[in-house]
């Protein structure tokens, strides 16, 4: 048990450190990397709680996919940090006081008394929480599960609606339209008066003869 406690406190300390660094570090790339560290240690704590599937899903989905994508985005964007930090000191007294008050209140309420540690009987070795999760997800929680898929669908549609544009400089061709083209579409006959080239009044030869 003592070994477990030791691992828990180590992971928790790293998690807290990483969490604080995410919001205090100046470089957004470092912030994203600290978030990766936070996810990793959180996954470790879940492993301690015997939630193996969730722990591995957290690493695979968040660390493996979401954060990598996020890192790419952060690296691509050219963010002016100094502009973002403008007004930090102006807001600090008010925001700091409120934040501190909330933190104190929450520590008072959430520590100890109401969330007393209880021991949960550990499951037998052949117990699979992956199977158990799957069973619950597709029976009792079917409705929220399906709704989550609809929410994701809407997110995809929204992203496309808001960003997809036909490129103005696109040189793509539409063969159907090309075949249907008529003479009037391409050929324009312009009526204009005949232009007769009039020879210049002064003859260059005459000039030479003069000189």
């Amino acid at each position: 048990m003592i070994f477990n406690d030791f691992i828990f406190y180590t992971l928790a300390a790293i998690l807290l450190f990483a969490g604080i660094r995410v919001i205090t570090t100046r470089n957004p790339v470092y912030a994203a990397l600290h978030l990766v560290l936070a996810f990793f240690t959180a996954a470790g704590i879940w492993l301690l709680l015997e939630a193996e599937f969730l722990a591995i899903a957290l690493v695979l989905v968040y660390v493996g996919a979401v954060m990598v994508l996020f890192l790419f985005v952060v690296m691509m964007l050219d963010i002016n940090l100094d502009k973002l930090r403008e007004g930090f000191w102006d807001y600090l007294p008010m925001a700091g006081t409120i934040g501190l008050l909330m933190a104190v209140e929450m520590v008072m309420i959430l520590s100890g008394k109401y969330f007393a540690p209880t021991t949960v009987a550990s499951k037998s070795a052949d117990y699979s929480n992956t199977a158990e999760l799957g069973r619950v997800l597709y029976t009792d929680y079917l409705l929220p599960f399906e709704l989550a898929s609809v929410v994701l669908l809407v997110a995809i549609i929204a992203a496309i609606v808001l960003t997809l544009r036909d490129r103005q400089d696109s040189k793509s061709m539409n063969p159907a339209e090309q075949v249907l083209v008529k003479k009037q579409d391409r050929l324009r006959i312009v009526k204009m008066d005949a232009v007769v080239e009039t020879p210049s009044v002064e003859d260059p030869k005459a000039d030479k003869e003069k000189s």
Partner: protein
Amino acid sequence: MEYIKTDLITALPELTVLFMAMFILLLDLFIKPKNRIVIYGLAQFTLLAAAYFTVVTYNPSVGYAFSNMFVDDPLADILKLMTFLGTSMMLVYTRQYMQQRGMFRGEYYAMVLFALLGMMIMISGQSLLTIYMGLELLSLCLYSLVAFDRDNARATEAAMKYFVLGALASGMLLYGMSMIYGMTGSLNVAEISSALLEMNTKNPVLILGLVFVVAGLAFKFGAVPFQMWVPDVYQGAPTSITLLIGSVPKFAAFAITIRLLAQGLQPLAVDWQDMLLIMAVLSIAIGNITAIAQTNLKRMLAYSTISHVGFLLFGFMSANLNGFASSMFYISAYVLMTLAGFGMILLLSRQGFEAENLDDLKGLNQRSPWAAFLMLITMFSMAGVPPTLGFYAKFTVLQAALQAGFIWAVVFAVVMAAIGAFYYLRVVKLMYFDAPKDNARISAPVDMQLVLSINAAALLLLGIMPQTLMQICGVAIVISLQ
């Protein structure tokens, strides 16, 4: 397998909307832009079909589906029918506006239907999880609809504000829900209520959870002190989307407030009554007083919304069936008034011109006496002048609060309503006593003019004969909450 079948029948209206939203999305790929009116027709048909299934599966008792996560009670059915009606009217009002601004696209109708699905899930949510999923579905659709006119910088800014603050509100709501789940050990609203009855309700963790839940709800309603996003979003969004945000989602917000506070956390009523009292009084005061200073009609109506939300909370505050029923009556009246109000802005707008400033209403009576008269009824109703619907709605919520013993708050609300009447009546003055600024003819499709006229007439008629609507609200609340 058998239980899945009964579940699906209970959720038939939701399935219809979901299926049709996806169908419209696919159909839009194969349809020529000039034939896009078909999609509009399909969207209206979807609403009709969903309403039909809601009526057919109506039964006067309370039914559960999907492992008690979904409830089908008279309250849900009636709120859904009202939502369908409101959405249908909104689609009629916005068609020409969207066509003129190049936003008449298939995605608009798909998004509106997905938003509708979110509202229906919220209305029928019996578990904290379903309520939250419905809310996210609705919010996500609304965020992207606000930015739908994507080359408009103001709309994009409004969408960004709405998104960030909405995400914050969702976070607060979730945090509160997690505290309540931690204490009661259940996500189901009914089980939470029975668990609370057996424990010490002075437990600070519960109160903390309650504070966050109420804050999250207030954010979604736009009650003071969580109202910052309302004016900016109302003004920045295209008017057709403002019409959507301001109207029908309020039914869903009302429904989740009933589910969470009246059904789930009723044993904590003593605590949330005080919170709602403060928010209600502040909303009425700040909404009405700030609205006076506005020159933009959309912004003015946004502040007016904040004050209406204050009145709505007066009904909740009394924490009894009578109060909830009067709140439901108020929200129905509010949605009808909002539809008419923003409908008028859409009516007066034309290609390349937004009639969103108060000055644009000047001399409307000379340009079109009929439009001026419709606006007159709407403004009177919003101000609460008898015999319009708005008067009766305010009367019932204040009466409910009075019976619950909030005498001083009611007196304050009446004074504030009198102050608020000033800016509504100013609109009437501008329309009837000032010279018109522009003399463009009002050109709106016949169906829009017709529906808008019926809408305004309903404000008058329901004000004279409110009994039927009041009775419907009363029955729905009584059957569903007992």
